[in-house]
């Protein structure tokens, strides 16, 4: 077993026992990246057949900076100083976070030349904990998508389980870099499921914390009332250790909650005895637009995915959890329509800052005045997905349509929130500790199969987005493989700031299923 095969907690333990060094871990990591990743994403690159066999997690490999950080960790250890709880652990960062002196592109041409003058709080906390950033990874442009295909930096990331399939998105580079064994940890963001959906597709653990649990300072904004930074990891324990480091109040972000961060690791092995875990029929029905008419149709969840969730329920019941069936979540199906409105309004507002004046791209074409420069710059700099979001956001928030769309969507968001409040109410009828659901309505789809149909692509997030509207935490973890040997994700949703319970349940499930046959199958790029 190579160093790069170990979990974050195993690595940092070996380091403290002086059985390895941070530089040795980094060397093993960079060698493995060289074997499986292929070339990094770049503007105007043509994808070749050779590219289609590789993962392409990265936009920027920061190996020199990583070597300095790893050497500093080793120096601290040698001097008898505490190098931090994640000392020597390599991690990647979704390229939507600003990191000082590195390109911070948002996978967009308009920010391709932008070098951030400061570092995001979540990244700074990882580095302060001794973790070593090895690079910035690919995503959908400005996080707008569920497959990573919309990145301006090609080749876009491919699924390590089968490179003909998408890794999910928008944190596709994060999930693929962990799934392909390149790093044990990655920092992603989740606005509608952008951590949990790619985690499910790539067979790894992904956490959307409670809104406000992790600071958004230094995160290039998509939809400010929905965006949540969070961990992508190989195991629940590693995800808990990472959230422990990045969570907490931040004077730079007034929306970061001041609620104390509990010790996630101390109760991780506490088991599920006596916990009430719900199953909702509203998460076993899915909605998809008819490919010909565009009309929305309800379908049953694919049998393999439903079977994985029900198997997980059986496993948890055998360990002493009480499974509560028929939990009503009646507003689940409105998650995507509400998201189409709210996220677009917030995105349009956030995208107006890219104007070719203060930073980023400015057109090289001749222009006569400021407004013409804006138009030329934004036309060259934005891909189709940002343009679409600006236009939709402006339409549904226009004075004459606001009541019909935006105000209505904000009220339906209240109903979605109430669904969660009802089932998690400790004095209510259901008194759930967690809701157990599938993470995604399908396993990873093929590259190019959905891209371009923005409605169909959005419905890939239909089982994850309600948690974003409600602000509650969600954890996706591997729950099996389908007949094509593609990962199936199962999701745990909890009440505000109850990440600890989700970790505890997820860890119990991991332990109970560690000898199941599917856990011995590796992603194809690792075989």
């Amino acid at each position, binding site marked *: 077993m190579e160093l790069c095969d170990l979990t974050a907690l195993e690595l940092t333990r070996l380091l403290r026992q002086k059985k390895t060094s941070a530089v040795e871990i980094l060397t093993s990591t960079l060698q493995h990246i060289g074997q499986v990743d292929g070339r990094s994403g770049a503007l105007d690159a043509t994808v070749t057949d050779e590219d289609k066999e590789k993962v392409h997690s990265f936009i920027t490999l920061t190996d020199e900076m990583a070597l300095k950080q790893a050497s500093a960790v080793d120096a601290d250890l040698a001097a008898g100083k505490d190098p931090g709880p994640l000392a020597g652990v390599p991690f990647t960062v979704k390229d939507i976070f600003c990191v000082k002196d590195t390109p911070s592109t948002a996978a967009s041409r308009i920010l391709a030349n932008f070098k951030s003058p400061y570092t995001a709080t979540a990244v700074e906390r990882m580095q302060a904990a001794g973790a070593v950033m090895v690079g910035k990874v690919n995503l959908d442009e400005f996080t707008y998508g569920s497959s990573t295909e919309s990145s301006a930096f090609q080749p876009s990331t491919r699924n390590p389980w089968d490179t003909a399939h998408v890794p999910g998105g928008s944190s596709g580079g994060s999930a693929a870099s962990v799934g392909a064994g390149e790093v044990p940890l990655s920092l992603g963001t989740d606005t509608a499921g952008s951590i949990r959906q790619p985690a499910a597709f790539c067979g790894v653990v992904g956490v959307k914390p409670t809104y406000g649990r992790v600071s958004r300072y230094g995160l290039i904004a998509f939809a400010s009332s929905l965006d949540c930074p969070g961990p992508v990891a190989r195991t629940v324990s590693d995800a808990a250790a990472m959230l422990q480091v990045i969570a907490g109040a931040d004077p730079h972000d007034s929306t970061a909650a001041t609620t104390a961060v509990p010790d996630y690791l101390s109760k991780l092995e506490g088991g599920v005895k006596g916990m009430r875990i719900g199953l909702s029929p509203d998460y076993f029905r899915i909605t998809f637009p008819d490919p010909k008419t565009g009309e929305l149709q309800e379908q049953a969840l694919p049998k393999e995915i439903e079977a994985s969730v029900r198997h997980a329920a059986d496993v948890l019941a055998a360990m002493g959890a009480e499974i509560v069936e028929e939990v009503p979540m009646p507003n689940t199906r409105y998650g995507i329509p509400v998201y189409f409105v709210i996220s677009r309004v917030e995105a349009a507002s956030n995208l107006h800052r890219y104007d070719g004046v203060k930073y980023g791209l400015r057109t090289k074409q001749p222009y006569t005045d400021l407004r013409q420069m804006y138009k030329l710059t934004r036309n060259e700099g*934005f891909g189709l997905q940002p343009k679409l979001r600006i236009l939709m956001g402006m339409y549904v928030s226009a004075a004459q349509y606001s009541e019909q769309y935006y105000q209505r969507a904000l009220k339906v968001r209240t109903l979605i929130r109430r669904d969660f409040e009802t089932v998690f109410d400790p004095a209510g009828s259901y008194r759930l500790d967690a809701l157990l659901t599938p993470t995604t309505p399908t396993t990873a789809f093929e590259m190019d199969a959905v891209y371009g149909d923005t*409605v169909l692509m959005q419905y890939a997030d239909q089982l994850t987005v309600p948690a974003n509207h409600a602000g509650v935490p969600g954890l996706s973890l591997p729950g099996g493989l389908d007949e094509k040997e593609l990962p199936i994700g199962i999701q745990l949703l909890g009440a505000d700031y109850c990440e600890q319970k989700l970790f505890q349940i997820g860890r119990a499930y991991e332990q109970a299923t560690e000898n199941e046959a599917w856990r011995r199958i590796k992603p194809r790029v690792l075989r």
Partner: protein
Amino acid sequence: MSEQITPEIFDHLVDLAALELDAGQAEYLRKQLNNQLKAIRELEAIPLGENIPISLHGVPYAAAESAALREDEWHLYPDAKDILAQAPQLENDTIVVPDIPHTTLK
């Protein structure tokens, strides 16, 4: 059902958004907008009582969980040159803004 976003409405939105699209982009984007509005239309059928408030955030902002506002004090940014270095056009450490168009009101 007729298209909600007609070519005229679309062109107006494009202008407001300070974009400039070629014909292929415009056709694709207008089609996708209309398709998305079909999905959004599902919201119209939901019975909403008069007393349902809007939610701007999922998690409520209780005072106990919110940071106090910082004092309104200015601080010198230590690396102003790093910020200026990102500007597409500089003159004497000042960001250059192209001429602003003027319209004479009647």
